[in-house]
């Protein structure tokens, strides 16, 4: 039995040392305006989900790959995330060629009897859609980092309370992850080994119960400190930012044209 992993590897970029929080507070982002990136990711997702034809989805996936390259997403991490797209995907898709009725799938003249052509086609469509949306989301919105994402949502009119909640969660993720690791190290020093048994589940429950208590005490101190500084329910500089430039508008137009083209091509197919 493998030892319990401390966090899933994908958690690292957000949780380790807060590196992704570093420049996000005030550095001007490279590339198009953050608002365009977030809105663009959402519109791209809606467009792609509404498409039907595989030949139209492939250029959409190509656009997402181009965006990922332009955003300089780290290749290895991104590929791992694409491959790791929940076991869910495999479960849902593996059964489709068997459950969708239709003519049997033939591959290079060989009749693959229980697999239906329509089901295989549908599984491929879903796979391309999921990957295209995920790549574009990571490239446009994910590359902003969590803090800038929060500020961008505020500029786009998200409720202040929600944005504050997001920023607080992001702020303390790293702190709590480190506290969790410290407690886990202490448990390991006393000989604790995680297994599939009640003792493990109860011990981990106690660990996180303790983490809840400590973090609540910490949050009381934070709330008091914020009141001291005159917090009235919003951060004044939250929604500040530069206006759209001519270049931003041009990119927005290009993106809109590309998505319209995809939608029209899908109708005509």
């Amino acid at each position: 039995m493998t030892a319990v992993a401390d966090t899933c590897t994908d958690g690292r970029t957000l949780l380790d040392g807060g590196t992704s929080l570093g420049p996000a507070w005030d550095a001007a982002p490279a590339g198009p305006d953050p608002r365009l990136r977030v809105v663009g990711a959402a519109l791209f997702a809606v467009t792609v989900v509404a498409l039907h034809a595989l030949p139209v989805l492939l250029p959409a996936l190509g656009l997402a790959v181009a965006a990922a390259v332009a955003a300089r997403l780290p290749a290895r991490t991104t590929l791992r995330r694409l491959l790791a797209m929940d076991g869910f995907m495999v479960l849902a898709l593996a059964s489709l060629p068997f459950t969708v009725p239709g003519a049997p799938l033939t591959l290079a003249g060989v009749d693959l009897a229980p697999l239906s052509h329509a089901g295989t086609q549908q599984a491929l469509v879903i796979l391309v859609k999921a990957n295209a949306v995920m790549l574009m989301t990571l490239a446009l919105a994910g590359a902003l980092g969590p803090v800038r994402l929060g500020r961008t949502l505020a500029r786009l009119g998200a409720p202040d309370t929600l944005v504050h909640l997001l920023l607080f969660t992001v702020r303390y993720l790293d702190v709590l992850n480190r506290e969790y690791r410290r407690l886990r190290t202490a448990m390991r020093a006393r000989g604790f080994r995680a297994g599939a048994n009640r003792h493990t589940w109860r011990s981990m429950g106690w660990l996180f119960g303790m983490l809840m208590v400590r973090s609540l005490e910490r949050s009381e101190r934070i709330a008091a400190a914020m009141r001291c500084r005159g917090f009235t329910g919003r951060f004044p500089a939250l929604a500040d930012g530069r206006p759209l430039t001519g270049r931003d508008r041009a990119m927005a137009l290009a993106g809109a044209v590309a998505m319209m083209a995809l939608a029209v091509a899908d109708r005509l197919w």
Partner: protein
Amino acid sequence: MAHIPDGVLSMPVLAAGIAVSVAGCAYGLKRLHPDRIPQVGMLSAVFFVASLVHFPVGPSSVHLILNGLTGVALGWAAFPAILVALLLQAVLFGFGGLVVLGVNIMNMAVPAVLCGLAFRRVRRAFPGDTRVAVAAAGAAGAGGVLLTGLAVAASLALSGREFLTAAHLVVLTHLPVLVIEGAFTAAAVGLVLRVKPAVLDDPAPHSDEDEGEGAP
């Protein structure tokens, strides 16, 4: 497991998810007094970290959903807290899609709020009885997972008959998580009740009177 990616579900299911999530989050935010933001943000960070921990099961491992515990600790604020967690996971890690975010939030947050309300009701019926409260917490933890598994399965099954097999598999894979999460939640709540019971009381009465003052 509860993160459905984009491209799978049908439009009516997606629309229903968005409607329920927007309404639930709006209500949760309306009830959330600005003074409680640090508390709720901190707890959602705890649950975020806890949901990344992998528990060994046979040759593989599972991670917890923790929506039962979120509901028990946060009540209606579980809705925006789960929104934040899923949004971060979708945008930064690529877990789950964007359009399907509404459905994913609904599938986790509705069970969370239901379990939280049921837990509070049990606590009010048996005031001061820690053993009943711990048992109720265990039931909330397991119930949150069960309801989420059923909701994910229903989202799939309602999107097309061809997903019925996948829907059955989804419910099956939630069963080990259900057992672990029940024990985990009971232990966590038991410890909190012993160390600092006030944490799990209903938020101070004044925060209900001036609800709606959230946005200045």
